[in-house]
């Protein structure tokens, strides 16, 4: 059937199973928006307040559902506004397709109005990108983009379509959904080698990351931990892969990781790393990382083997297949000394938390906020965050009851990510969604409250308000002699009135009781709510490994004390 390029774009999206797209119209995507209008019964478009919000929404949609998120923007500033969102998805390996319009081909390269070389701009922050100058290539390019975005190690793909290509006509035939390109299976000799190494281990630690979380293989990981008497820790990106109720799960390790998880990793003699990339925030000083452990790394991306940390065995293959074959071949094992050691680490961690609680004297601490959220949130709740102290508190204390329940910018650390991502996650999953944010991050993209209101997406926004840029301020406290350069906000924003101005509900909470009531009411409101949650500006994210330090340099309390 003959169709215009714009109709081909929309029909190919529908063909690929896309039901929701996020975007913002403009001069060079008018034709695409016309095609969206005509197909609005088959594909839902959500208009955000800013293209950056659309990119983060597509990203959050993907993180919460596993589907490919899609965003659309016009040429020039529309396209460049997507950049931070695309980079965020790239660093966290999130499958996403971004479609941008551009000026007609004959005007390319002439600095035309709203012309930008977005393919050039996004070259380093996409898994792959295209400019389609020939209508004959359009549908297949979109199909290939979906295949690339979701295959192997996922990532964002951008397709730039000049306006004359959107207008031109060409034949369109529906095709099947583009398949994931299967990864090769590991050689039996590799599996055998891994099995032999794990059999030798007395203190096994399974270390999981975003790669494992994305595959939803929590059950298999927990079963193996049980079988070989191992403990499980995760990177930031691995959160929510294992429910916090699992006894063998020690939580996140790394710069702000759980005491027991980081120390157990250090004390282990074997690390089975599943879908992790050994980021500097996770390892600290790479030269000192896990010096006493043998490391086996399972990953789909060969470029991650020996990139940051040298491993003893790297298996580049289908991670789920490698993991389950290794697990099946391993005999049951018991390691009582290891249980005892980890038990003592957990006790020490509990003691640190108890002391912190005593010191808080019933105040509304960040941990208290998370405790109340954990207690009151319904099953399957998605927790999204922005970036900063609140994000680390959420990573440390939020309970997750299933995979894809944690939506947060790990690799890029994008302040302003949370609200757009929370909206995308809620639209995609249909599950209750709580955004935990801070007054710094929220200030960056709070315009998306308008989007939440206009589409009535009843996200609960827990705004941890301390009047400062807390994470940077924490570093200034510890490493810059308390010289608080530009981290004390001194703003007079009334977030309750702000919520009301947007047509949302606003409420303030300064005590645990007030917060508990506000949170319960917010969940029941059926409308977007901002809870202006007042916390102390001197709260620290602890424990902390100083930048460039190792686990031996861990700081466990505000006095800057180390372990023991």
């Amino acid at each position: 059937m003959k169709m215009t390029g714009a109709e081909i774009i929309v029909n190919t999206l529908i063909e690929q199973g896309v039901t929701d797209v996020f975007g913002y119209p403009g001069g060079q995507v008018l034709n695409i928006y016309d095609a969206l209008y005509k197909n609005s019964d088959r594909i839902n478009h959500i208009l955000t307040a800013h293209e950056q919000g659309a990119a983060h929404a597509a990203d959050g949609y993907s993180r919460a559902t596993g589907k490919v998120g899609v965003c659309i923007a016009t040429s020039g500033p529309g396209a460049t506004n997507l950049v931070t969102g695309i980079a965020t998805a790239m660093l966290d390996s999130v499958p996403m397709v971004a479609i941008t319009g551009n000026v007609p081909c004959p005007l390319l390269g002439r600095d035309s109005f709203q012309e930008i070389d977005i393919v050039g701009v996004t070259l380093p922050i996409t898994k792959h990108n295209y400019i389609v100058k020939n209508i004959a290539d359009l549908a297949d390019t979109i199909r290939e983009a979906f295949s690339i975005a979701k295959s192997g190690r996922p990532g964002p793909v951008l397709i730039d379509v000049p306006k004359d290509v959107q207008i031109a006509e060409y034949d369109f035939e529906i095709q099947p959904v583009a398949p994931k390109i299967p990864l090769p299976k590991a050689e039996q000799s590799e599996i055998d080698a891994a099995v032999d190494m794990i059999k030798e281990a007395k203190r096994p630690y399974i270390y999981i990351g975003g790669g494992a979380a994305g595959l939803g293989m929590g059950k298999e990981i927990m079963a193996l931990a049980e079988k070989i008497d191992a403990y499980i820790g995760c990177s930031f990106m691995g959160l929510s892969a294992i429910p916090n109720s699992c006894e063998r799960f020690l939580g996140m390790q790394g710069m702000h990781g759980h005491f027991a998880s980081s120390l157990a990793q250090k004390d282990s003699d074997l690390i089975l790393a599943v879908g992790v990339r050994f980021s500097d925030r996770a390892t600290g000083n790479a030269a000192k990382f896990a010096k006493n452990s043998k490391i086996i790394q399972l990953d789909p991306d060969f470029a991650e083997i020996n990139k940051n940390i040298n491993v003893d065995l790297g298996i580049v293959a289908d991670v789920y297949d490698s993991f389950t074959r290794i697990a099946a071949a391993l005999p049951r094992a018991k390691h009582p000394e290891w249980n005892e050691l980890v038990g003592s680490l957990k006790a020490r961690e509990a003691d640190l938390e108890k002391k912190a609680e005593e010191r808080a004297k019933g105040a509304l601490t960040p941990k208290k906020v998370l405790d109340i959220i954990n207690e009151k949130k319904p099953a399957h709740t998605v927790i999204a965050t922005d970036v900063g102290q609140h994000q680390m508190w959420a990573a440390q204390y939020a309970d997750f009851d299933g995979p894809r329940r944690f939506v947060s910018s790990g690799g890029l650390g994008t302040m302003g990510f949370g609200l757009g991502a929370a909206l995308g996650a809620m639209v995609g999953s249909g599950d209750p969604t709580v955004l935990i944010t801070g007054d710094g991050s929220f200030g960056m993209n709070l315009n998306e409250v308008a989007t939440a209101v206009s589409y009535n997406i009843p996200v609960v926004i827990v705004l941890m308000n301390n009047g400062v840029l807390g994470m940077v301020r924490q570093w200034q406290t510890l490493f810059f002699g308390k010289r608080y350069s530009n981290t004390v906000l001194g703003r007079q924003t009334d977030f309750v009135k702000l919520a009301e101005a947007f047509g949302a509900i606003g409420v303030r909470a300064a005590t645990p009781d007030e917060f508990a009531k506000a949170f319960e009411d917010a969940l029941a409101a059926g409308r977007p709510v901002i809870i202006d949650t007042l916390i102390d500006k001197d709260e620290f994210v602890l424990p902390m490994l100083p930048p460039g330090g190792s686990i031996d340099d861990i700081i466990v309390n505000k006095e800057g004390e180390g372990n023991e």
Partner: protein
Amino acid sequence: MSKFVIAVYVDNKAGVLTRVTSMFTRRGFNIDALTVGETENPDYSRITITLDGDDYMRQMMINQMKKLYNVKKVEVLDDAPITRELMLIKVKNNRETRSDVLDATNVYRAKVIDYTATELCIEITGDPTKIDAFVKLMEPYGILEMCRTGIVALERGAGTLLNK
């Protein structure tokens, strides 16, 4: 640190060279020379890259190149590939030095391709070490200008890179 030569088959499409070279900048790989041109197959171009680096850098560079969608094949050429480079060099021409320059040109099987009263332009092809030696030889006579192509390289024998 050692010098090595990498041959890369890429799609013969606009922008592919940028994808490869911008990755080098981004990842901090510093290359000595790069040549690119058509191959026996019009669908592909062949990029030849020469650089100094350690094993870590070499492996990272190969891995990151293989991840690019338009890169079809990456191969570090074995220890003794056939390597050739072409140089054009402009040297001062005067009565005192002319015969020495021409003798050297003959011995190196180079060619004089332009001759004026004040300059000689010489074309020389060969292994990069031969070119280096020729440059050194010409220095005392006064080099006015020179440009080198960077090396192209093939492995010896009947095998081909694409079929490897």
